């Protein structure tokens, strides 16, 4: 029986795939929960796999019917039924619990309801014809949880109260290959193999994810054997680990952008030329070379390889052109007033360094920048000028990354630092719901052009995230996953037999 310990920079404060969409949380769910439709994570493209649903088909353009897998049990011993599935889906589709409401609004708003047809059949209906059926059924947010267990956690066992969901986030139960044996928020998650798993048995008897916030301690823990895998290794630390013959590192340019967002409504930044200049002044390649040892990926547009057909490297939305930046500034009559760049002190790898480097680059073109460190999220503040943020690929579609944040009435607009108009909304509609990939691509290109002309955001790079482990641990982040997933399912981790 193999056991491992993972030293993680962060451990979640709660475990509920429905309400969570943080980079920290996404590490944990895949081992414990299943979605109806799974994905082959070894490839970038959308290779859908049956999971809790064995087959699915559209019964009409707005309704999908899914056949459920037989003999699936939850980790608490209950059998999974159509009721559980309907409950799990509707907790998001018809959310009443506010944290779910928020999550469903930005990505699941097209979904109307799920209903049970028979014990092994459910139907899901949408409002508009949905081009992304599988993608949106593969979301972490619609992972399946047990109904009776959840409802029975607090209060009336027949009713799903808010408190039930609160309680669930501390004692999560799913159908996945591992059960959460111990969970101390912010400190430790212990997985144990769930023998009743419907699929291939988990390779590990036990896996502990222990929070070790300090980099030096994390690296040391790996070296002393207190941890077998550690997460979040900054590029600058890689050489040190690699110099040790007992250790190795793996890494990938994560499907996530570190971005700079700009407040289009700030009085000083209202002129798009100023924001364009802020963007053009940033030499992202140099940032990559210096801070990421060239291992990060600098995009020309808001696009990822993972998008498959919708990957559009040909778009040149963002570029480095200091001369043009200077010109634009002059045209816009920039008065040299201070432009602040907010950053959290530690949250993003190299975030502070990049912030300082960016203001230094601004200086080159005459922008008077200042780094402003704040723990708090300033994205909703009218005083925001610019700040760093990350824009993960929540699912492999432009909608799952750009779309989640820059939709009309979406969070960015909601926070008042981005404006859309009717025209934008129309393009958006086409991008979101066109059945035809080419139409969607065209619409997305239009959106990108809008962004280029009046930029609220600049994707800096796909950061290169690294994990380090003992030589004999065979594990690597799989290309098909959303960022940061610690996948310990069968086939994802093994041990070299040396």
């Amino acid at each position, binding site marked *: 029986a193999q056991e491992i310990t993972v030293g993680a920079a962060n451990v979640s404060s709660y475990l509920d795939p429905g309400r969570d969409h943080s980079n920290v949380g996404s590490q944990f769910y895949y081992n414990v929960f299943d979605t109806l439709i799974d994905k082959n994570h070894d490839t970038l493209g959308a290779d859908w796999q049956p999971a809790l649903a064995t087959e699915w088909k559209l019964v009409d353009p707005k309704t999908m019917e899914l056949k459920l897998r037989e003999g699936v049990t939850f980790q608490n011993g209950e059998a999974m039924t159509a009721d559980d599935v309907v409950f799990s889906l509707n907790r998001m589709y018809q959310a009443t619990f506010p944290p779910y409401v928020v999550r469903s609004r930005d990505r699941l708003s097209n979904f109307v309801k799920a209903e049970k047809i028979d014990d092994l059949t459910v139907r899901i209906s949408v409002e508009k014809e949905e081009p992304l059926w599988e993608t949106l059924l593969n979301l972490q947010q619609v992972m399946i949880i047990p109904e009776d267990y959840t409802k029975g956690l607090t209060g009336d066992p027949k009713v799903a109260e808010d408190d039930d969901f609160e309680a669930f986030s501390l004692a999560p139960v799913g159908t996945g290959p591992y059960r959460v044996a111990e969970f101390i928020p912010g400190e430790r998650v212990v997985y144990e193999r769930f023998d009743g798993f419907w699929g291939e048995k988990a390779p590990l008897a036990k896996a502990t994810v222990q929070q070790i916030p300090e980099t030096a301690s994390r690296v040391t823990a790996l070296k002393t054997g207190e941890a077998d895998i550690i997460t979040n290794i900054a590029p600058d*630390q890689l050489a040190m680990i690699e110099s040790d013959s007992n250790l190795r590192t793996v890494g990938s340019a994560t499907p996530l952008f570190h971005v700079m967002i700009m407040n289009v409504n700030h009085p000083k930044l209202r002129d798009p030329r100023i924001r364009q200049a802020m963007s053009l002044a940033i030499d992202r390649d140099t940032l990559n070379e210096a801070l990421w040892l060239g291992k990060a990926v600098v995009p020309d547009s808001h696009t990822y390889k993972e998008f498959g057909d919708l990957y559009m490297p040909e778009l040149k939305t963002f570029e480095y052109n200091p001369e043009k930046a200077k010109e634009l500034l002059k045209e816009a009559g920039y008065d040299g007033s201070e432009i602040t760049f907010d950053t959290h002190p530690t949250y993003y790898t190299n975030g502070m360094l990049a912030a*300082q480097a960016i203001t230094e680059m601004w200086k080159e073109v005459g922008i008077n920048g200042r*780094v402003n460190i704040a723990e708090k999220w300033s994205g909703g503040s009218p005083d925001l000028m610019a700040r760093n943020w990350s824009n993960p690929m929540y699912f492999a579609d432009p909608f799952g990354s750009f779309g989640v944040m820059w939709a009309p009435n979406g969070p960015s607009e909601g926070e008042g630092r981005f404006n859309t108009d009717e025209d934008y909304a129309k393009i958006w509609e086409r991008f979101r719901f066109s059945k035809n990939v080419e139409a969607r691509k065209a619409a997305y290109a239009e959106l990108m052009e809008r962004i280029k002309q009046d930029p609220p955001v600049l994707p800096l790079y796909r950061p290169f995230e690294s994990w380090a482990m003992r030589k004999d641990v065979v594990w690597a982040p799989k290309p098909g996953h959303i960022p940061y997933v610690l996948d310990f399912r069968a086939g994802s981790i093994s041990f070299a037999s040396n």
Partner: protein
Amino acid sequence: MTHSATVPAPSLPAAAYRLWRGADPIQKAAILIGLTLVSLAILAPLIAPFDPNSQSLIARLRPPLGFERAKAGFLLGTDELGRDVFSRSLYGLRLTLMLAGLGATLGLMIGGTLGLLAGIAGGRTEASIMAAVDTQIAVPFTLVALFLLAILGSSIEVIVLVLGLAGWEQYARIVRGEVKRLMNMPFIEAARAAGAGPLRIARHHLLPNIVSPLVVQFTLSLSNIVLLESTLSFLGLGVQPPTATLGSMVGIGRDYMPTAPWIVIAPAMMILLITFAVQILGDWLRDGADVRLRAR
């Protein structure tokens, strides 16, 4: 002790010279270190070969001169953004000394005044001041710092305020204790018999007598503040980058300790030297002041 009739009220340089003569080698070393550090801080703009904030991203993390990969001109190497560690250390020293000096002074003024008030006034006033002291002791200081920085925003002024608040309760306790002790001394009664009012008593009779414990506390809080500032930097609450302080250089540079220790070594050594010098100087000053009391 002989009652030498010839000891004059000392003039400042003369007193300094006498103190220097009375110092032992360690104390002399501390004095020299202190003076050197202060001069380096004052002359930083003249000495520093580079703008402390100018980056050279392509020359990040280069070791000090003499090591492989060192970059010419960068005496102590470069930091994680390719800035000159030597120049940053000098400017950091300058700012750190300023912060520590101002912070300790502020603490002294707040705590000293309140302590004096408590000791002289007694009763309700004393009780409420001491309650404030108790409160300050009971609330984790990092939180106080955090709140203040969050409420007032992070700027050098606020950080000075925060650092000043970090020690006021110590001053208040000490001053109050001393004042209460002194208030029972016959010479205070003598002053009252001479018709002195409370202000005069505080200024002429109490203050000169609490100087010496205050000096010690001042030196203690100077080093405390240097350390505290570095802790704040560790937590990301200190002086905002890119501005360098010794504390922030160490706090942020800690991640590079295994791979690029030179980023941390210079500022850490400076912190060490500052506190070292300050502590020894504190003892030395106190001993110097004590001579008068001890010599009967």
